């Protein structure tokens, strides 16, 4: 017998289903009815499904504590921002906005496709928000509210300032350049000095306020660097711009010679474009990482003294509070089990694959998942004894030791700034002292040197490549959060992997068994379709789409039953003397049939072997540090082809191992997902986390990657190396330009139009070269 092939598509969410059925589940059927009931049936004709995205399938949702997320203005208008999961295309935007717009008290409903967020505004009762959120959830989307305080903190002031500065610089550059072209052409056609001076004066009137406004980001950074007795790229930029402007102003006042206002404005404009792009690319990567984190977030159910329950943000739960942890949900706080007993999935915290049984008195940690019956947990103070506190302490140690990474651009600036300023000084002395020129003429030539060397191309050399590389990785689902991550990644010569959840996928995989009747698998999967237990979900993944059986009873922590058919632990289904378990397993028992055993094992992430092989070709050594038992670490390491491994590591062991490698002169990339990896992520030269990782780990990691394939690791390093090579090429190009032009400037042969042409062409050349990173 073969598995039933998926021949039809669910009429709502498009998931493959058996022929004859219309919907994959009751939720989709209800959503379909709701949408048609609202008269919005055109949605289905407009919908363009993207198989790579999460389907818009209604799922049982958590209850939210909306109160902390809603802001109310003086006019009594409440507003709320929510992350939306399940958006497929513009039709979903239309559906959500139209459905909400029909509610009489909704005054704003706007879905942002780029950030995948819904902004909701309504009047009247605050608590009506819950009903509105429920309405969208019924349509098949998952909504998670954003904390009002966190949204305010994320408001992008820097980005706004940069764009305003860019707009002003662009305005000034365009208009001053128009006047300058008139001057250059007029000079060759006998324009009188009076007109020229007037045009210079107008240029000055535009350029001075524009430069003093648009240059502030550079001046501030340069000042900060000088105060700390360092130099960065902004120092020569600021010195150049200020000197050029002052000099041009004096020339204009004196009614003589050349003015370089156009060069100063264009320089700022080009640089600001680079900064804005850089900021946007990383801002987008960071916002996406935040969105993914928010979608995994869930509130904690707190039991009030009178016995009622209410949802509350995990961070706002006070020590001493009692919380209820339902089956399948994450424990949001550190605490001690008070009531109930259940197996816990602690893999994110300890790296251990097998569930651990928690009984009253067991200490539990935020991040573990309850696989069994509902537990009552007493929240303990996040005191110094908890695992989380220990991790945070280690992270602080690691960050204090890491020291400031000096970017490539700043290393260049350290040599560049003094050289350029020395060249200008020598030019002045040469013309004035040796050449017996007037002080004015000597100054003019020295300033021309500074203008020519003003590092426009050099300042674009690194950010341009970074922007393009960040975008390229972003399209691949790799989110670069740190500005210096690319440069640090390019130097990596050792990669340390965590095992559980990093080398392996978070869900276990059903072990293939040729003696098993495929029909048994389908029959068992029908029982599990409604369960959130990881093994039940793994079984469903293995069986493919099935029609869920009705009236299944789930006994939390033990199994599922439907009449005499049972699926669950050996004790639950009543198997006498089961063979010893070597991993997680499920038993399936039907009347008058032999019990069937489903064994599960950890599965490698896709492309894990190939990734290790690619890394080896790149001369990067891989090793494994895991908190799991040595036997299973050795098995997984062997499957991947990694020779160096160490099992049963505590977070401190991992941390010290990574520290030792770094002291030995290695540049270590740590790839990990668990809370126990967090300190070593911070200790490594650079770090990566999958999006299934613990919140703390994802926050620390420089790079977060989506999707299940491990090849993201080797690809990121490859892109980083290529980017580094192109950055160096760019710097060589920019310096080459200076080597050509500086002698001309020192000889006093540079005129304003030559300066403008040289600067623009070198910048364009550098930008063009940077595009190669996208290949």
């Amino acid at each position, binding site marked *: 017998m073969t598995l039933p092939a998926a021949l039809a598509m669910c009429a709502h969410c498009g998931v493959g289903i058996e022929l004859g059925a219309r919907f994959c589940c009751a939720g989709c059927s209800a959503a379909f009815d709701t949408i048609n009931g609202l008269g919005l049936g055109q949605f289905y004709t407009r919908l363009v499904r993207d198989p790579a995205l999460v389907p818009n399938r209604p799922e049982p949702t958590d209850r939210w504590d909306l109160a902390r997320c809603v802001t109310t203005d003086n006019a009594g208008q409440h507003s709320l921002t929510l992350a939306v999961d399940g958006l497929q*295309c*513009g*039709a979903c*935007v*239309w559906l959500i*906005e*139209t459905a*909400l*717009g*029909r509610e*009489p008290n*909704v*005054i704003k*409903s706007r*879905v*942002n*496709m*780029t*950030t995948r967020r819904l902004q909701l505004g309504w009047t009247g009762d605050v608590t009506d928000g819950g009903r509105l959120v429920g309405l969208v959830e019924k349509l098949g989307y998952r909504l998670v509210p954003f904390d009002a305080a966190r949204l305010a903190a994320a408001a992008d002031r820097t980005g706004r300032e940069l*764009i*305003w500065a860019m*707009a*002003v610089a662009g*305005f000034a550059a*365009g*208009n001053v350049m*128009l*006047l300058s072209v008139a001057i250059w052409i007029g000079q060759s056609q006998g324009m009188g000095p*009076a*007109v020229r001076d*007037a*045009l210079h004066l*107008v240029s000055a009137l*535009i350029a001075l306020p524009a430069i003093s406004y648009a240059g502030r980001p550079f001046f501030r950074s340069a000042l900060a660097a000088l105060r700390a007795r360092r130099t960065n790229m902004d120092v020569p930029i600021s010195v150049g711009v200020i000197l050029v402007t002052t000099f041009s102003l004096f020339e204009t006042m004196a009614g003589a010679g050349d003015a370089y206002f156009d060069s100063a404005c264009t320089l700022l404009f080009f640089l600001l474009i680079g900064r804005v792009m850089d900021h946007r690319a990383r801002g987008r990567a960071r916002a996406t990482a935040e969105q993914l984190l928010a979608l995994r977030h869930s509130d904690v159910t707190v039991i009030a003294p009178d016995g009622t329950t209410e949802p509350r943000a995990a961070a706002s739960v006070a020590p001493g509070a009692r919380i209820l942890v339902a089956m399948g949900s994450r424990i949001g706080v550190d605490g001690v089990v008070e009531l109930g007993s259940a197996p816990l999935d602690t893999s994110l915290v300890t790296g251990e694959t097998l569930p651990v049984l928690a009984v009253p008195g067991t200490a539990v940690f935020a991040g573990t998942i309850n696989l069994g019956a509902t537990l009552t947990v007493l929240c303990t103070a996040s005191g110094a004894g908890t695992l989380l506190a220990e991790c945070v302490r280690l992270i602080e140690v690691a960050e204090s030791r890491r020291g400031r990474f000096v970017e490539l651009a700043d290393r260049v600036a350290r040599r560049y700034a003094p050289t350029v300023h020395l060249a200008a000084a020598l030019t002045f002395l040469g013309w004035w002292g040796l050449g017996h020129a007037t002080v004015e003429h000597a100054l003019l030539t020295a300033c021309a040197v500074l203008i020519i060397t003003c590092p426009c191309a050099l300042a674009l050399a690194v950010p341009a490549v970074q922007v393009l590389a960040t975008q390229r990785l972003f399209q691949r689902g790799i989110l670069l959060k740190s500005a210096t991550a690319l440069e640090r990644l390019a130097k990596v010569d050792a990669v340390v992997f965590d095992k559980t959840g990093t080398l392996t996928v978070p869900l276990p995989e059903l072990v293939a068994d040729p003696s098993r009747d495929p029909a048994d698998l389908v029959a068992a999967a029908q029982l599990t379709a409604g369960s959130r237990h990881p093994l039940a979900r793994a079984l469903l993944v293995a069986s493919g789409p099935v029609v869920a059986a009705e009236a299944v009873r789930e006994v939390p922590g033990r199994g599922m039953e439907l009449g005499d058919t049972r699926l669950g632990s050996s004790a639950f289904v009543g198997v006498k003397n089961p063979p010893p378990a070597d991993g997680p397993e499920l038993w399936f028992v039907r009347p008058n049939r032999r019990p069937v055993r489903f064994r599960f094992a950890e599965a490698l992430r896709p492309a894990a072997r190939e990734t290790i092989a690619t890394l080896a070709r790149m001369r990067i050594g891989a090793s494994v540090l895991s908190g799991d038992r040595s036997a299973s670490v050795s098995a997984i390491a062997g499957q991947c082809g990694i020779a160096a491994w160490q099992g049963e590591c505590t977070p401190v062991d991992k941390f010290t191992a990574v520290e030792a490698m770094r002291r030995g002169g290695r540049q270590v990339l740590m790839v990990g997902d668990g809370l126990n990896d967090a300190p070593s992520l911070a200790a490594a030269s650079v770090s990566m986390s999958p999006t299934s990782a613990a919140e703390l780990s994802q926050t620390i990691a420089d790079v977060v990657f989506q999707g299940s394939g491990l090849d993201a690791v080797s690809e990121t390093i490859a892109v980083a190396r290529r980017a580094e090579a192109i950055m160096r090429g760019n710097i060589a190009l920019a310096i080459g330009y200076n080597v050509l032009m500086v002698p001309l400037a020192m000889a006093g042969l540079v005129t304003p139009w030559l300066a403008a042409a040289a600067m623009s062409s070198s910048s364009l050349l550098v930008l063009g070269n940077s595009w190669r990173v996208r290949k």
Partner: protein
Amino acid sequence: MTSILGLILLSLALGVCALVAFLWSLRAGQYDDMDGAASRILFDDHPPKR
């Protein structure tokens, strides 16, 4: 000479208009959702405004 000055002032005024228009559109959030704007134009019946 006066005509040149007049024309310069005129061109500057036009430039300032463009700058103000850009900054206004930026403030109004017109660049916040480029992906959404691309598909929004295809909806012929707008959600009812209140």
